[in-house]
């Protein structure tokens, strides 16, 4: 299971919504990392065959982590969370 490493201090908490569900994240998290810590591993669906895809490079190279934030497709691993952010899975609806 995923989660957080203990003892790294407290960062301010923000709330984001993913696929209609609310979850807590820390300020400074990327969307991809906040979702991973919440055990959400499938971020986009392949636009050709619908298969789930998740974080692969975690450094902005591969575009496997595409999610839709406020209607705009972005890389989950390079986009920081914001309180109240609404995130949807990328790719095929």
């Amino acid at each position, binding site marked *: 299971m995923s989660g957080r490493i203990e003892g790294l201090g407290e960062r301010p908490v923000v709330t984001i919504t993913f696929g209609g569900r609310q979850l807590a994240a820390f300020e400074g998290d990327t969307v991809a990392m906040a979702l991973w810590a919440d055990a959400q591993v499938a971020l986009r669906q392949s*636009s050709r065959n619908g298969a789930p895809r998740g974080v692969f490079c975690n450094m902005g190279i591969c*575009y496997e982590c*595409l999610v839709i934030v406020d*209607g*705009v*497709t972005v890389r989950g691993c390079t986009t920081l969370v914001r309180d109240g952010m609404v995130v949807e899975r990328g*790719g095929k*609806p």
Partner: protein
Amino acid sequence: MTETVDLVVIGGGIIGCSVVQHAAQLLPPSTRILLLERGPVAGATSGSCMGHLMVTPDTPQDYAFTRTSLDLWGELQQQEGGFDHNPTGALYLADADEDLELLPTLLEQFRANGATAEVLDGRQLREVEPGLAEDLPGGLYYPGDGVVLPMLACGAMLRVAQRANPNVVVRPGCAVIGFERDGDRITGVRSERGTIRCENVVNATGVWAPDLAELAGQARLPIYPRAGNLAITGHHVSPIRTQLLEVSYLRFAHGAATVDPTRTDDDVGGHAVNMQPQTNGGCLIGSTRQFRGMDKTINHALLRRSLSRAQRYVPAVATAPIVRTWVGLRPYAIDKHPLIGPWPQLRGLWIAAGHEGLGISLAPITGRLLAQQLAGLAPAIDHTPYLPARFAR
């Protein structure tokens, strides 16, 4: 070692591939057909273009030419598929009221050819295409157009050819460097990998067709590269599902007025945006027109103009991720008609080139007409407007 074949097709773009396909289908299966391509198959214009299958209704001849070709595209989809064929229909969009004047004429042209098309107001437009801007005054919908992915279509044509005729050989990475002749007839071609004896050779080299003509000792053909800038968005769900184009396109793209290919300014022939949904969820955005030789560097000013026009029609494009941009070179024939048929001054030399911005749409009919002439069969439609003889001295 000298190789001997019956037919050499030079150029592995969409036109050369279609010629190979139809020759394989119409000539006896014992015919040895060799495709020689300097680089990769679909590596030049046919891999750097859009894939709008477009019916042009300007005249009955134009309509028959394009419509027949699109029907052949449908047949290829049935036979083979695998090239993202998508019967999207097309929306011709008016930006301002002055563009609205173009719509009734266009509608009339479609109707005169027995085709269905509809003029739509702004609200109806958004029923067809919900992503369109709210303030568009209107447009015209023609359901008969479609979209393909041209480079994959080249492969599909060659696979069909190889199934129809086991003697089809495709040789990428092998340029033609000369011709062998005996008096007024061709006896072979010289390639980078040796001489090939053959009696019939098709020059299907797009913007290089004049060079190949010269190589064969003939006058340069009046075909000029006309550059277009393109951009493609990433895999987010495409903001559109229909092939979109500005109706003002009609003022210059296929209309009667010819343009001067020696002018290199940005605006020769005008500018209109064209947007195309991709099956992978991307959106292809084009496409500008400029004469500046073989230069394939991006013209940023023109690219920006295309993108800002696209944003004007489909506001969601503004935040769409752009993955790549590039330039393709359309083979523009000086009188706006492609060259399809024999070259009268050198027996055995055939031409299939000069399709400007409609080569994808017209590839199947081009291959069919040329193969019919090679086989001595009756042409599918009147082919005389396209005979290269009009440029012979």
